[in-house]
């Protein structure tokens, strides 16, 4: 997974913001997951715009952290959530751009 991936919370996942935290429950698997304030903000941003890069840009302004550390943390969290099927990868913007460049122009 990279910053260029877009992700979304699938329909079968219920989420609830509880104080600063967010609880997610996959209704298909029964697996639940708790996120702290930072993780909650990440998910909140993803709900508005699934691009991890966009969330990364916004959180860099909000938290005192270097770009590299934040990238590592967000990608690790996104990967863990994908493994638990609490997040699914939609598209990869770099690959999508490359694919569209390979396609012949419409007649």
């Amino acid at each position, binding site marked *: 997974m990279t910053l260029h991936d877009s992700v979304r919370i699938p329909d079968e996942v219920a989420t*609830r913001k*509880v*104080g600063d935290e967010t*609880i997610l*429950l996959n209704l298909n698997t*029964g697996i639940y997951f*708790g996120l702290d304030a930072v993780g909650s903000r990440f998910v909140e941003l993803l709900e508005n715009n699934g691009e991890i890069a966009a969330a990364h840009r916004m959180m860099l302004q909000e938290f005192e952290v270097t770009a590299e550390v934040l990238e590592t943390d967000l990608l690790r969290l996104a990967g863990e959530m994908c493994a638990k099927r609490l997040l699914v990868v939609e598209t990869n913007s770099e690959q999508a751009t490359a694919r569209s460049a390979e396609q012949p122009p419409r007649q």
Partner: protein
Amino acid sequence: MNSIHRYGICDLVLTSNIALPELIPATEGNTGCRFELLTGDLPCAEGVEWFHQWTIEEEGVTEDGGRREEPWLQLGRCSDAYVLRFPSCAEFIVAKDTNSIRCRPLAHTTEMTVRHLLLDQVLPLILSRRERLVLHASAVLTGHGAIAFAGKTGKGKSTLATSFALEGFPLVSDDYLVLRPGHEGWMAMPSYPGVRLWPSTIRAMMPQDLATRDVASYTMKRRAADTTLLPQTNEPVFLRRLYMLTDEAGSTSIDKVPPGRGMISLLEFAYNLDITDRAFLRQQFETINQVTKDIPVYAIHFPREYSALPAVREAILQHPYEDKDIDAAR
């Protein structure tokens, strides 16, 4: 012809073709659920789609060094029923609407074991479909309302509840707690008299001449149900607080659990007959979210020594009630 017995448990009227001496007879109310112990050489249910199982840890390790586990309860469904199979004891067939339960015991399974499986294993799962929330918890009634102790098996829920009951605080329930929304808060529904304890706990805490009963053939635990010694409330009561029993600690301390952590804990301790029912899971998720908002959740750390119980009790009773707690109980 077999006689039919009627009992009350958690506000449910249960009829049965065998006596259930653990329960209090019901004199009024419509039957909510019928239990039938089947007899004869009966085949296991067929065409069952198994969707979940609970395991218990066995002694020793597997060949690859893992924990050795064996299935304790297998959950499945067929066309019009759920099947709850305890592979070493019996199979319970529960109608989808949970209005009837039939039990096929294995040949060696005693009626006492069937009663225990019904009352302490099957009924909480059935009640999870009929009520808003059933938690793996014991509860007692204090001067401020009911308090509940939730935790994994072996963490001391029954021991702590018994400690309160022996001091005159009535038991509300042992091991599972039904919560129902009321006009002014969450109500804890009384289950049935008594507690299940290890013999060593009974010896340490109870009078030497106390009469106790076997619980089931596969466990050493015994049931103490003398209501003069262990008073029991028969009415629903407001639940004021939930205490999560943590791992053993050297001294007693009580910490507020953040709401998100509290919600995770309640998800962990909630009974659920059908984990594949998405609509039910979503509803339970919302209920737990609401309970977490309404009822303060605390983590309690304490030494697991009988001699420490009076101090633990006192710490809980003296634990100051915040305004939010009082609002929740109004």
